[in-house]
């Protein structure tokens, strides 16, 4: 599978590394060249030596997405730190490039729900955190 990940923060870079380790082809786009270091951190082999790809560019830059291989991506993951950026580029991947599987990180649960209903696969870490806090607050069974 060819996986394209836009946004290499903690989440994006970790998912990139595990996808690569699982044998997928992985390409990462981030606007900050420094985020490349996060891909190398803790690995015995450098990102490129392990056959990973890295492209510097902002999410809405079509040229950067094409250079990163969006046209042949099977999976597109939007994991920048901006909810709105993620929601917009996910739709670009879906509608303009016809990427089959599009997964979007959306911190705001309300937006995650509504766009989920519209057919985007949204993941809301906030929603999960809320649920975990709620569970942790419940009285422990005697």
């Amino acid at each position, binding site marked *: 599978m060819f996986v394209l990940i836009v946004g290499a923060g903690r989440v994006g870079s970790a998912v990139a590394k595990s996808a690569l380790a699982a044998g997928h082809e992985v390409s990462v786009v981030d606007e900050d060249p420094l985020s490349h270091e996060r891909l190398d951190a803790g690995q015995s082999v450098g990102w490129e030596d392990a056959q990973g790809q890295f492209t510097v560019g902002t999410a*809405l830059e079509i040229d950067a997405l094409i250079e990163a291989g969006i046209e042949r991506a099977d999976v597109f993951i939007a994991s920048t730190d901006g909810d709105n950026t993620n929601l917009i580029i996910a739709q670009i991947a879906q509608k303009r490039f016809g990427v089959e599987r599009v997964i979007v990180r959306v911190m705001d649960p309300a937006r995650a729900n509504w766009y989920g209903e519209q057919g985007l696969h949204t993941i809301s870490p906030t929603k999960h955190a809320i649920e975990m806090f709620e569970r942790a607050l419940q009285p422990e069974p005697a």
Partner: protein
Amino acid sequence: MYAIIVGAGKVGRNLARELIVRGHEVTLIDSSRACYLAIEEEFEHAAQYGDATELWVLERSGIQRADLVIAVTGDDEDNMLVCQVAREKYLCDRVIARVNNPRNHDHFRLLGIQPAVSATDLILRLIEHEVPSYGLVHLLALEEERLEIIELEVSADAPTVGQRLADITLPEGSLIISVLRDGAGFVPKPDTVIEGGDEVLLVLDPGLEEAITAYFTPDGRPAQA
């Protein structure tokens, strides 16, 4: 009319003022506390503080009854998202978006957000209008209707000079709607004769510009100043 304006920078504030003067109801939303405090003094209850890409902020501003949503923040993703949610979730059928980076225009189009207005494009169009060497000026593009209105300067040795309108066969999908001559404009009749130095306004299907230009310039290239 009830209009919600998202983004209270120079554009948003002035739009709000103009709409209020024209008797419309307006809510002006900004996500910066400092900006909100500045507009609150002037706009009072019409000013709201919040991130309008959050659904509850839009709902608090009464988006369900809005006739028009205008997104003019400095962030194109935010503008796209506000307009998309306004149209598709809250069924507000009139939205206007500001495009900050003209390269993002395609994205607005892809998501069906029209009209999307870019200051860069507007100024470019004005430059075309002011600099005659361009010859052809786009006055208006109705993208959804797939029509545009252009202005052309008629060169003195163009093939159409001296001909009656009735005798000029323009390509299918184009029509001369006005002639500007000696500083005045008029709607031409079939017996109007085209003169060198006229400016003609045409309505046409997109893509016909080049074919049309050939009728009013000596060699089919834009007229030179």
